[in-house]
């Protein structure tokens, strides 16, 4: 290596550690990597290792690792031995000349990398290194005396050498642990690693005892790494000696500086590998955590839960409890019960949740496990044997009471000081409490509900708002658990009574916002209760409506109104008129949040749907509809006469919702568009609210005529349709308008009973077919047309073919016009649409103009050969359907046979290209489906597939002609059975090569 080159390298390394633009770093990095990988890399490392600069030394060590990983196969045994001796020598020199620890660690990693590739040369690697450390120079591997007593040598190591040996032992297990344990290549390395266990134990035994010179801390880390490796390896020869170190490690608890590391080690092993400890270890651990010293730490934790030592102790306590939960639960003796009491006490530490008290959430996790264990035992054990149960119940009750106190919202001024993560953490902790309560409910049922109801009513009486809110939250958490049994209704009836409604209606003056929020949410969560107790429903809904205008409570209130009105619609029909009036009043005075408004519209429409008399139903609906209709007309007038804009009027200001105050005010046309969009979304919600909740009756008479919709209903449908159409025309560049209209159509498609949004098929077809393929959101239109076709199939059949012909023509003609410019959504949805029609009415498809149809077939074959997954999947489904068609009509069959004669070979070609490696792995099942159908239904499939397999365009040459022949034979003999998928997958892998077997 020339000096010039070395200087260059050192300069490049300095660039990496100096402030420079990213491009300079990249250039330096690339150049250094090139040098590392060059033939002179070994000499480069050797030359740089003696540099006084630590960064250069680090780079030298790194180069050794890179070279070993890339070129170890090129080294002879003698080269490898010489390299080993050199690296050990460099390590010793660096250790003695005070080189920084991070370089020494990197050199250790280089030695471990050497072990991974040449473990047969120095199977007792740790002993070899200890020996060299002891004598202070690097020795050949042959010089190691087999009979050497490692203990004696380790005893003589000073602190620095001890540190070095432990560091190597840690790197050894961590690096070897990263290699595949079961692979043929690395299995011997793992076996030889295990052969070092006795030396590791000797080393750590002494290391753990040397707290005074700092060796114990790294010995604990090393011990943890070896335990976790032993867990993966599951080798007794490794686990048994490591168990011998538990007691020396436990003694480190008494060393103040080592407490956190020791606690972390034991917590980790208890949590992840509890079977590592023997019974005697558990006895010793229990004595330790039950000692006066531990009680002192526990008390400290309860008082100052943010103290690091105390927190580590708390986690250790919980991990021990978790590992021994069953034994603790079933024991009625004083000591285990004392421990459980202390664990319950962890849910009552000082301070607010998360920000100050970090032990509450982990403690709650333990108690969730405890409760689940009690639940399991209560189902499996005999009741007479459950003498422990009263004790367990008492602990659980204490935890519930502690949790109830903990989840109280802090005073507003405290909450305001919390950062976003503390706030989110508080919310998450409340959810964890909800989880615990749901588990406890399994044990205590109505007693638990009753407890919270009492607590709530007491809090209400004493005007303790935070407590009342916490109790309501807990009751809300149990909403999904309680049944409709009378005892639960009795309890909830005590809540939903006069004091509750007085509270929310402002009887007690201003109450905290959170309490109002939780109260409204409680009404929503117990919707089923109100269904059973309709006499309380008006009170609840009046409260909710009163909160709709509130900027914070409006959203949740509207959601509750929507849920309650939808589920209790039959009871509320008499209130529809009053609700419409209330809605009109609210929107006349303010601009409602659009989502809240849509929910209210949905709620009122749900009630209207349940009105039994058709004339009243229609007239009530019309009243609600007229409000929205006026919005649409107003928006159109505004668009044409911008001077009409008056933002002081809520009817115009509702178009400003999406406007950000920091931007200039939008144009009148934009406001008009927003008003129209809100109106369309309201119509969509109206349509959803009007959907029948009963199961539709199945019409077995295929020939039934569609129900004739006449009179006021037809006029209403026409008016709604015209309104939508006019919005579309007025705002013809808006994709959102198209999407909103599609949502309105969709809501009607699922209905079987005539209604304002169940438009006649002709009307829907007219809308679709008049839209040009360049219109915005054309893909959404096609997707909606697919739903339309599905709805036609569910209804009377008479009118279906004529509508399908029009829709099919519109779709294929659009593709023709787009001529290859169809986006993914259009491609996929147009194919799905034609697939749906071909499946039921193939004759309609084959009656389409020939050039359009040929263009469509070519398009699907092209899509099948491309990479876009969604259109490709749709094309595979389309062809699966087409190749398996068996029409009764002989002329149609002849047409189909004729078409397949032309289309079969390119289809087979595309399919085989995909299976031959072109397709993504995830597409194989779908393509196998098509292949199965092709083989089953097309007599000429074998010839087509064979031609495709041996065609020059076949994507890969990794498979031999024999393999292709075997594949074809297998596919044909399987005759479309499920095993085809496996055969296809194997062939795809064979074509792609062994690089792709990693995920098989």
């Amino acid at each position, binding site marked *: 290596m020339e000096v010039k080159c070395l200087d260059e390298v050192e300069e490049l390394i300095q660039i990496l550690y100096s402030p420079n633009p990213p491009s300079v770093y990249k250039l330096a990095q690339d150049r250094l990597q090139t040098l590392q990988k060059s033939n002179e890399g070994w000499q480069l490392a050797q030359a740089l290792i003696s540099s006084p600069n630590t960064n250069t030394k680090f780079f030298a060590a790194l180069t050794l690792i890179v070279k070993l990983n890339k070129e170890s196969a090129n080294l002879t045994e003698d080269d490898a031995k010489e390299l080993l001796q050199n690296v050990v020598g460099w390590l010793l020199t660096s250790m003695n000349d005070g080189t920084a620890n991070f370089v020494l660690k990197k050199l250790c990693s280089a030695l471990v990398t050497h072990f991974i590739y040449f473990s047969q040369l120095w199977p007792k690697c740790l002993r070899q290194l200890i020996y060299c450390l002891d004598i202070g120079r690097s020795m050949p591997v042959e010089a190691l005396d087999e009979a050497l007593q490692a203990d004696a040598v380790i005893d003589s190591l000073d602190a620095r050498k001890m540190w070095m040996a432990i560091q190597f032992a840690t790197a050894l297990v961590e690096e070897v642990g990263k290699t595949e344990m079961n692979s043929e290549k690395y299995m011997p390395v793992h076996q030889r690693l295990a052969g070092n266990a006795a030396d590791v134990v000797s080393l750590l035994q002494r290391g753990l005892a040397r707290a005074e010179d700092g060796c114990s801390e790294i010995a604990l880390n090393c011990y943890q*790494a070896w335990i*976790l490796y032993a867990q*993966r390896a599951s080798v007794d020869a490794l686990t048994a000696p490591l168990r011998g170190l538990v007691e020396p490690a436990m003694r480190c608890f008494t060393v103040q500086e080592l407490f956190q590391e020791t606690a972390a080690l034991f917590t980790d092993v208890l949590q992840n590998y509890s079977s590592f400890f023997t019974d005697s270890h558990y006895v010793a651990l229990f004595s330790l955590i039950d000692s006066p010293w531990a009680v002192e730490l526990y008390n400290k934790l309860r008082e100052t839960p943010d103290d690091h030592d105390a927190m580590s102790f708390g986690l250790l306590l919980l991990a021990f409890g978790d590992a021994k939960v069953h034994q603790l639960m079933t024991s009625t003796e004083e000591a285990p019960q004392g421990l459980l009491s202390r664990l319950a006490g962890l849910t009552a530490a000082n301070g607010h949740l998360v920000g100050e008290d970090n032990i509450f959430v982990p403690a709650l996790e333990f108690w969730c496990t405890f409760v689940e264990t009690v639940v399991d035992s209560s189902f499996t054990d005999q009741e007479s044997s459950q003498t422990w149960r009263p004790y367990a119940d008492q602990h659980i009750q204490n935890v519930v009471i502690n949790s109830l106190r903990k989840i109280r919202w802090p005073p507003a001024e405290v909450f305001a000081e919390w950062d976003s993560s503390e706030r989110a953490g508080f919310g998450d902790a409340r959810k964890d409490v909800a989880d615990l309560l749901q588990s406890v409910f399994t044990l205590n049922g109505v007693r638990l509900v009753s407890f919270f109801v009492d607590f709530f009513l007491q809090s209400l009486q004493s005007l303790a708002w935070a407590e009342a809110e916490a109790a309501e939250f807990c009751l809300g958490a149990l909403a*999904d658990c309680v049944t409709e049994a009378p005892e639960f209704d009795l309890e909830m009836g005590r809540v939903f009574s006069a004091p509750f409604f007085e509270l929310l209606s402002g009887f007690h003056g201003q109450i905290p916002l959170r309490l109002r929020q939780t109260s409204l949410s409680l009404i929503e969560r117990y919707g089923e209760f109100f269904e059973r107790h309709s006499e309380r429903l008006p009170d609840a809904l009046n409260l909710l409506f009163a909160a709709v205008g509130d900027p914070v409570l409006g959203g949740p209130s509207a*959601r509750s109104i929507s849920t309650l009105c939808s589920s209790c619609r039959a009871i509320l029909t008499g209130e529809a008129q009053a609700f419409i009036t209330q809605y009109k009043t609210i929107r006349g005075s303010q601009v409602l949040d659009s989502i809240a408004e849509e929910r209210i519209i949905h709620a009122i429409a749900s009630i209207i749907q349940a009105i039994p008399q058709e004339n009243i139903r229609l007239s009530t609906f019309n009243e609600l509809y007229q409000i929205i209709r006026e919005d649409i007309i107003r928006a159109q007038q505004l668009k044409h006469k911008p001077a009409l804009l008056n933002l002081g009027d809520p009817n115009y200001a509702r178009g400003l919702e999406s406007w950000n105050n920091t931007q200039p005010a939008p144009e009148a046309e934009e406001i008009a568009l927003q008003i129209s969009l809100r109106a369309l979304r309201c119509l969509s919600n109206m349509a959803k609210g009007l959907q029948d909740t009963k199961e539709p009756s199945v019409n077995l008479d295929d020939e039934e005529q569609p129900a004739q919709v006449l009179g006021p209903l037809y006029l209403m449908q026409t008016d709604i349709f015209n309104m939508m159409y006019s919005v579309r025309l007025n705002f013809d560049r808006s994709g959102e308008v198209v999407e909103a209209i599609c949502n309105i159509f969709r809501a009607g498609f699922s209905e079987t009973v005539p209604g304002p949004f169940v438009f006649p098929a002709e009307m829907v077809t007219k809308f679709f077919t008049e839209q040009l393929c360049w219109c915005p959101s054309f893909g959404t239109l096609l997707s909606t047309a697919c739903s339309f076709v599905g709805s036609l199939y569910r209804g009377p059949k008479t009118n279906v073919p004529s509508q399908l012909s029009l829709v099919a023509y519109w779709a294929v003609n659009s593709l023709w016009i787009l001529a290859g410019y169809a986006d993914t959504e259009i491609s996929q949805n147009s194919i799905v649409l034609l697939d749906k029609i071909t499946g039921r009415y193939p004759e309609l498809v084959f009656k389409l103009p020939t050039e359009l149809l040929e263009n469509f077939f070519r398009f699907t074959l092209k899509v099948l050969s491309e990479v876009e997954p969604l259109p490709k999947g749709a094309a595979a489904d389309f062809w699966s359907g087409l190749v398996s068609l068996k029409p009764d009509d002989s002329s149609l069959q002849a047409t189909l046979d004729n078409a397949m004669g032309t289309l079969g070979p390119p289809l087979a070609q595309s399919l085989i290209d995909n299976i031959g490696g072109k397709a993504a792995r*995830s597409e194989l099942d779908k393509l196998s489906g098509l292949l199965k159908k092709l083989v089953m239904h097309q007599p000429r499939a074998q010839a087509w597939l064979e031609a495709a397999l041996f065609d020059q365009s076949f994507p890969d040459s990794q498979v031999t002609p024999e393999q292709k022949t075997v594949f074809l034979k297998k596919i044909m003999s399987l005759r479309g059975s499920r095993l085809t998928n496996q055969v296809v997958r194997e062939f795809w892998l064979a074509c792609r090569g062994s690089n*792709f077997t*990693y*995920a098989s």
Partner: protein
Amino acid sequence: MATNSTSFYDLYRHGSLGVSLTDALDDLISAERIDPQLAIKVLNQFDRIVAESLQEKVKSRLTFKGSLDTYRFCDEVWTFLIKNVTFKMENGAHTVQADKVKIVSCSAKRTDEK
């Protein structure tokens, strides 16, 4: 540290995220940007991260009610077949109905780790 040594289920590889990740890894291997060993490591990492994230980070809840049709516990795997299921999302946002649902659940800790 536990995460270095603990093995995780590869169940989630069959979900849409896992399938897409495998496709992406295939593409990178085809383009010779990575080798299969790295792809294996990425998938192992994926198994770990999904399991840990679902356990530690996901706080969303849903509840469901339905009629339990069949259940079994075999080789540490619970299987439930539930009919007429209603899923209720958090905060009562919306509900989802299903005629039949199959739930397969494995212990968070594998038997070799207990």
